[in-house]
C-alpha cells in the first residue's frame, strides 16, 4: 500500500519485502545475512559488539526480520 502527500510517500512492505530489507541492512552494515544476524542475536553472540552503531542499526529492524 502506498500513501502519498506532497512531500512524503509511505509504503507498507509485504512480509517478504520486509525480510529482504532486513537482509540488505545486515549485509550493508555487518557483511552478514539477515538470517545469520537473527541467529547470532538470539544466541546472544553479539557480546561486546551489541552496542556498536552497526549492530544497533540492524537490531532496530528486527520486526522486519522475524
Amino acid at each position, binding site marked *: 500500500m502506498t500513501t502519498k502527500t506532497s*512531500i512524503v510517500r509511505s509504503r507498507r512492505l509485504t512480509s517478504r519485502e520486509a525480510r529482504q530489507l532486513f537482509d540488505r541492512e545486515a549485509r550493508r552494515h555487518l557483511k552478514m545475512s539477515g538470517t545469520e544476524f537473527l541467529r547470532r542475536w538470539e544466541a546472544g553472540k553479539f557480546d561486546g559488539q*551489541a*552496542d556498536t552503531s552497526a549492530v544497533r542499526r540492524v537490531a*532496530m529492524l528486527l520486526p522486519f526480520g522475524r
Partner: protein
Amino acid sequence: MPNAGPYALVVGGKCSLMRDPSLALDIRMQYRIVEASGDRGPYKVTITAYMYIVDDHRGREVFSYHWQPDGPKVKFPHLHVEHPAFKKAHFPTRRISLEEVLTLLIADFGVQPLKSDWERVLTGTQQKFAT
C-alpha cells in the same frame, strides 16, 4: 483489536538534508498499536523504540539519539556523540521526539526546511507527542 505489533518504520533509508556540506538523517522506529480514548481513539500508535542518526556527507555518524528499552544493554533514552574520546558514552536524555531532532537540525545545523511554516507544523505535532 488489530495486530498490535511491534512494527518497524524506516524513513527513507537515509534522508539527505539540504545543507552544504550535506547531512543525512537515518530514522528507525518501532511502534505498537494501542487502544486510546477521546479524539485519538479508538486506537493510536505509540513509539516503543527509536533511533535518530545524523551522518555527515561521507556517511560517518556525527551523533544519534537512541531509545531501545528492550535492547541488550542500555535501556534509558540517550545520546551518542561520535567523538573518539566519548564514542562509547551514553549521555542520558529524556524521550526525544522526531520533531525535536528536526528542529535542532534546522535551527542549529543550518538545514534548509522544505516548508516555510515548518516551525508551526513541528510545534503542532510536538504537542500531540506530549499528550
